[in-house]
């Protein structure tokens, strides 16, 4: 049911883990519904220098988390903000219809992390 690309990201997820003292953190989902994604950002000069994730969820959830981190690493925040769930799914060669919402989660977690970074910047 999953594409080779999905399985590759599931088996060898990129950027798993946490960043100590991150510049931004985003978390979406909750354990009751069975999916949680957490994304950590390190930002320098408006560019995402480093990104890591932790995910509790299905295979698609793990693969989309991995893919989204790969897609934004080295990108400017403006570029990163343009990443939609559709783009994530496409980058993985597609997802089964039932699993499209998993890609939502990944994009949402990223947006949340960027928002968190921006909020923190404002407060400075």
């Amino acid at each position: 049911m999953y594409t080779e690309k999905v399985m590759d990201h599931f088996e060898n997820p990129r950027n798993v883990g946490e960043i100590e003292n991150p510049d931004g953190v985003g978390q979406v989902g909750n354990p009751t519904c069975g999916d949680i994604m957490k994304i950590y950002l390190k930002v320098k000069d408006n560019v995402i220098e480093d990104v890591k994730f932790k995910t509790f969820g299905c295979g698609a959830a793990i693969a989309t988390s991995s893919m989204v981190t790969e897609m934004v690493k080295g990108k400017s925040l403006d570029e990163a903000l343009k990443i939609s769930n559709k783009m994530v799914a496409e980058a993985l060669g597609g997802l089964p219809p039932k699993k499209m919402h998993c890609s939502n989660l990944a994009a949402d977690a990223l947006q949340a992390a960027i928002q968190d970074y921006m909020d923190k910047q404002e407060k400075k």
Partner: protein
Amino acid sequence: MRRVYFDHSATTPVRPDVADEMCAFLKENFGNPTSLHYFGRQARKEVEAAREKVAAAIGATPNEIVFTSGGTESDNMAIHGVAMINKNKGNHIITSAVEHHAVINTVKALGKEGFTVTILPVDKYGMVSVDDVAAAITDKTILITIMHANNEVGTIMPIKEIGSLARSKGITMHTDAVQSFGKIPFSVEELGVDLLTISGHKIYGPKGVGALYIRKGTRWKQSLFHGGAQERLRRAGTENVPGIVGLGKAAELAIRDLQSEAEHLKALRDRLIHEVTTKIDYVKLTGHPTMRLPNHASFTFEFIEGESMLLSLDLKGVAASSGSACTSGSLEPSHVLLAMGIPHEIAHGSIRITLGRDNTMEDIDYFLEIMPPIVNRLRAMSPLDQE
């Protein structure tokens, strides 16, 4: 790659003996059993021989067996048929929260058509209590339908007690024995049920065929299919003759080998359960510790999610499932685990290992070797607090 099949509650391989018999049949004996001529009579003979085998396997008489397209049809047919004929007598149906969807969705659909439905809770082992059944009965109760053994957690229900309770109150009793048939010994007499469902593909027989036992004298009517007069007007449609032949053979062999299989399976299962629950942290057995199917082990692994475990196992050649095959495709956690009081986030981390006749202790060893690293890898990825 080593391939290990651990999903025998979802479906089983067809036994070579059964497949051979079906193939011979597919190629040679093709008549329509309703036809009067030679070809029809040859087919009819085999259908009736299969009916005798299935009847013998559950202690029924051949006339009490109706062949269907599978467990789902049998469940629908049993429940709908009892409801339809009794609707002037009463409108209350009792079932449990852990039934297969073929039962629970059928009962719920009747609930929208004017029937009153009681869905009984289960205890933490997935067990229905006989007292709860007794307390739920009203003078409008026309049907009790409670499964014999649960497909997701393997718990065996006290059907004998519920059956005699139902009988003492004059209430029709149906049980879905799809998972228990061929795995634990029983007869319809002993269980005291009026209707009982079995399915071919769960007992090393073919898919697309099942049977419904309808005790002589049971108030039931055909209410699903309209059409020809097959199966003594109890199930319209040309009989799936090779499937029926396969079901007959599979039933006969399942009962013949039941005792020895059960011992083999229990030895594997018990080692599996013991090792998994002692070697891996934050793991719990789901279902009843002793009143469970001999081939059934099911667990929850905290902090991680079921599908990702299944995919990881699959990459290592191990086929397992997380609950029923039906729910594997869905996003909600199992209704069975939730009914047992397991919290959502833990229910999401369920795995079911259901063993079969071809499994060996080496298969168990292989699983025990690959499972801990999978759990570790996924837990390392999990954002949930693990202290």
